[in-house]
């Protein structure tokens, strides 16, 4: 009976025992107070080459004491047959997302997120399912950009196609390009050379390609007038392409004998050494006309002011908007931005090229309409155009 009494204590004693357990467990929890990161999820990163997995989680809850506050998160991963290993640095405590870019494409990985407290104690989340990185065949966030490019290209191609019908296309007068003949004529009359500077752009730079197309047209005229055309180059590949362009232009004009390869030469790849070299040519040879067409940086004003000081007629053109004020201040004529790209069509007067300019204008009209509509809608408190454009960019 005594034994039975011991095995079955009174309700008061049972209550006390339960209270001790509850309080003991509660105090222990209160001392730690940290819950591990919750809802950990690992997904293949969308719109990438399959080289990353994105892990997201909900932040761990801090403990009360300073020692139990979360100092940061450590990501751990494993492959199907391996142990967990740390990935990347300890992340700041406010982080809830990490992109693991050190994975191998096609290999499945599982992750856990470890919360590390100030005293070094760790609290691991549950393990995620195995996920592998796969590359996508289309960047879905770029669909609007792709459609815009497609529409604009169709507009240009359509105008090029219709330009062949022979209908005259109006192109506004561009003084800088009208002056090309004047500059070449002046150099011819004075018996002095023409200096053509393509800037610092490489052969893959669109402004340099545009400059080359203008050079081709200039070379045709210099071939006719037998005016020396000097082209100092900054890029070795550009040098070779330019030689070919000028040679072909002379050949097309039936003057291969007037072409002098030595007039197209390499100076240096260094920016300011190139500026010094071109300045030296200007000061020594005093060309009657200077063309500054292409991509320019800080050397733009050094070149333009030296050209101005020798009294040469200067025609500049660049798409670098920061250099345009310098050219406008120091040169006689300046092709501003898009005029540089219109030069080839303007000078050759070919209908198909002129048609592309009209397509370009359609694009401008569309953008202008979108801006006006956006402003009106914003004033009316409707901001879906703004939101859409912000999301696309």
């Amino acid at each position: 009976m005594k034994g039975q009494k011991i095995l079955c204590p009174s309700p008061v004693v049972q209550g006390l025992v339960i209270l001790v357990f509850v309080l003991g467990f509660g105090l222990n929890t209160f001392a730690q107070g940290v819950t591990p990161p919750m809802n950990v999820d690992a997904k293949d990163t969308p719109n990438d080459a399959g080289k990353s997995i994105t892990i997201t989680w909900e932040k761990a809850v801090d403990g009360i004491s300073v020692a139990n506050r979360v100092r940061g998160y450590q990501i751990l991963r494993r492959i199907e047959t391996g142990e967990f290993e740390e990935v990347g640095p300890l992340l700041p405590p406010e982080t809830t997302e990490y992109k693991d870019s050190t994975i191998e494409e096609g290999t499945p990985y599982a992750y856990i997120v470890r919360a590390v407290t100030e005293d070094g104690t760790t609290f691991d989340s549950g393990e995620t399912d195995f996920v592998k990185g796969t590359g996508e065949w289309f960047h879905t966030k770029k669909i609007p950009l792709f459609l815009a490019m497609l529409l604009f290209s169709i507009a240009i191609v359509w105008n090029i196609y219709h330009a062949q019908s022979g209908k005259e296309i109006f192109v506004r007068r561009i003084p800088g390009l009208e002056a090309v003949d004047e500059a070449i004529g002046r150099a011819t009359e004075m018996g002095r050379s023409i200096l053509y500077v393509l800037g610092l752009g490489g052969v893959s730079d669109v402004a340099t390609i545009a400059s080359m197309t203008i050079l081709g047209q200039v070379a045709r005229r210099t071939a006719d007038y037998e005016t020396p055309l000097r082209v100092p180059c900054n890029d070795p590949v550009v040098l070779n392409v330019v030689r070919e362009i000028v040679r072909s232009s002379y050949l097309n004009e039936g003057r291969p004998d007037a072409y002098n390869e030595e007039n197209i030469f390499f100076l240096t790849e260094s920016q300011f050494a190139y500026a010094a070299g071109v300045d030296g040519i200007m000061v020594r040879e005093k060309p009657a006309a200077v063309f500054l067409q292409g991509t320019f940086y800080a050397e733009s004003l050094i070149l333009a002011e030296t050209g101005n000081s020798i009294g040469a007629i200067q025609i500049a053109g660049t798409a670098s908007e920061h250099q345009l004020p310098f050219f406008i201040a120091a040169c006689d004529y300046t092709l501003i931005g898009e005029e540089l790209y219109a030069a080839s069509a303007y000078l050759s007067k070919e209908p198909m090229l002129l048609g592309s300019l009209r397509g370009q204008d359609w694009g401008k009209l569309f953008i202008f309409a979108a801006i006006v509509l956006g402003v009106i809608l914003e004033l009316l408190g409707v901001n879906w155009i703004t939101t859409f454009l912000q999301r696309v960019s």
Partner: protein
Amino acid sequence: MTRQVPLVLCFLFGIVMILTEFVPHSRSQGLYQGIVNWSLIISPFALVLAVATLIQTHWTRISRHTEHWQYSYVVFIGIIIMVLIGVPTFLNNVSFLSKIGLSFGPKSPIFEWLFNNVQVPMDATMFSLLAFFIASAAYRAFRARTFEATLLLITALIVMMGNVPIGDLIWNTVMAWTPWDDVTSTARQWILDNPNLSARRGIILGVSLGVISQSIRIILGIERSYLGGD
């Protein structure tokens, strides 16, 4: 045929490079990187030809005794010294040269000394000239002959006063009695953020459309001036 092959290649590579922008797959990115690497491989070959033209140009100047021909010797001396010190890294294995403190290659102390104490100061000198050229160009641009030039002059003065420390000093001491706080700085920021930024964005939009239009013309083979006319 000599004209058609480059045009076909240009079309194919142009289309492929556009598509790689929209296809993030590793095969697409590998193709893009491969094409970029090909273009990089071309550069050293072109550089050899470029250096040959540089030597040819200066040799001609010396042989013809054109104006300032003596400076062409400086080019040759510079090339020879930098090539002799920067290129033959195999000479680092010659114990005699190492003993007398000579080292070769692009990380050689002599090479670095020449770069830091000759080329860098000369570049800085050319860059410094910009200050004087800006002054002379500004003088011409800001002469108040027309309404537009006067507008430009006033705008430039406001922006300048808002940028330089003396502008703040004048406003916060001499003009401190006025009810407006730091008006030059505010006006400068307004000019840069509104009329200036609007004009720049207009130019950028035009340039971007021009680039696309030019690229389409080249890809479709309509623009052939870069091949030398026609």
